[in-house]
């Protein structure tokens, strides 16, 4: 009887890594008809545009109204030298409940820190001194680095090959949408999906 239990325990970390949702990086009603997994890179200009322009409308029309559950996923691209650091700091900030604020400031000031490399200083500007200390330590924690890595691996499994990519999930079917987009068309697509049982 012990062997099956050990086998089950051994597979738990792998199962947890597969599509695990970090509640601190998720917004809205988990039982919403649509799930939006957003694979994003803090240093990518198209991700900045999505975050600043279309995402507030998605939040207003779908997430805040209980129609969609938004889950942030880190997908730092190798071509961006400060992306991984930004992703780790954002994940660490999620542990102190500040993911959204950190994501906002990182995208708003992206051109500045992308050039200067002052990622931590940017993140620290929206944290209290106590949070700064905790986030700085957490960002180097292997668990946080592994969290970023798990998001990347999940993206690779889902064939994410550009950022931003939104994976729209409805009744188990996944619809990837990559690159910049038109909100009017996206809204029609969401409404159409929601209206279908």
């Amino acid at each position, binding site marked *: 009887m012990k062997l099956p239990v050990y086998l089950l325990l051994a597979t738990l970390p792998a199962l947890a890594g597969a599509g695990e949702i970090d509640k601190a990086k998720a917004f809205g009603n988990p039982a919403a008809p649509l799930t939006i997994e957003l694979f994003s890179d803090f240093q*990518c*200009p*198209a991700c900045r545009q999505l975050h600043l322009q279309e995402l507030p409308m998605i939040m207003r029309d779908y997430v805040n109204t209980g129609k969609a559950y938004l889950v942030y996923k880190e997908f730092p691209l190798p071509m961006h030298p400060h992306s991984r650091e930004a992703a780790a700091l954002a994940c660490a900030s999620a542990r102190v409940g500040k993911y959204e604020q950190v994501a906002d400031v990182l995208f708003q000031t992206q051109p500045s820190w992308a050039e200067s490399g002052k990622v931590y200083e940017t993140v620290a500007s929206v944290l209290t001194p106590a949070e700064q200390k905790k986030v700085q330590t957490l960002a180097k924690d292997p668990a946080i680095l592994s969290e970023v890595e798990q998001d990347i691996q999940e993206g690779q499994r889902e*064939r*994410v*090959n*550009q*950022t931003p*990519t939104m994976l729209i999930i409805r009744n188990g079917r996944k*619809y*990837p*949408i*990559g*690159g*910049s*987009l*038109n909100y*009017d*068309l*996206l809204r*029609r*697509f969401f409404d*159409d*999906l929601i209206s279908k049982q």
Partner: protein
Amino acid sequence: MTSSRNSKPLAVLIWLVRLALGGIFLYAAWAKLRDPWMLFAMAIDAYKILPPWAVMVVARTLPWFELALGLVLVTGRLPKISSVAASALLAVFLGLMVRAYAQGQTIACGCFSTNEAISPLTLARDGSLLAGALFLVVMSFRPKKERVVSPADLSRLPDLEEAQRPFQS
């Protein structure tokens, strides 16, 4: 004898290119038709060249046109029309993709699925397909007298000496 050695490989090459091109068009059509058409509309709109009404029209009709073109190419019907149509379509696709890539736009190519970004790889792939389609155009418009004739073809011709005898006397 040289002509007989060239004819079969050339015919096989034409058949292979036609089949490959037709298969790719069929796959492209299937990839778009299996998903809601609004996804493809978003991919077209990202190129920022068409007004909204035209985006809707293209999103709804292009996959069906690709399906028809793929079928015609695979079955070998209407070789001139199908090769010209495939070349024109691929030239338009390649032109738009090169334009978007040169402008640094981060958009999905919309070739097969909605999540494939325009990259040197997608440009090279589309360029190769266009080269294949142009090859079919050249082959289908070749003047008949230049066509390679094999000994087997000659054996099927009527006896010319016999046919010309009345005129020789």
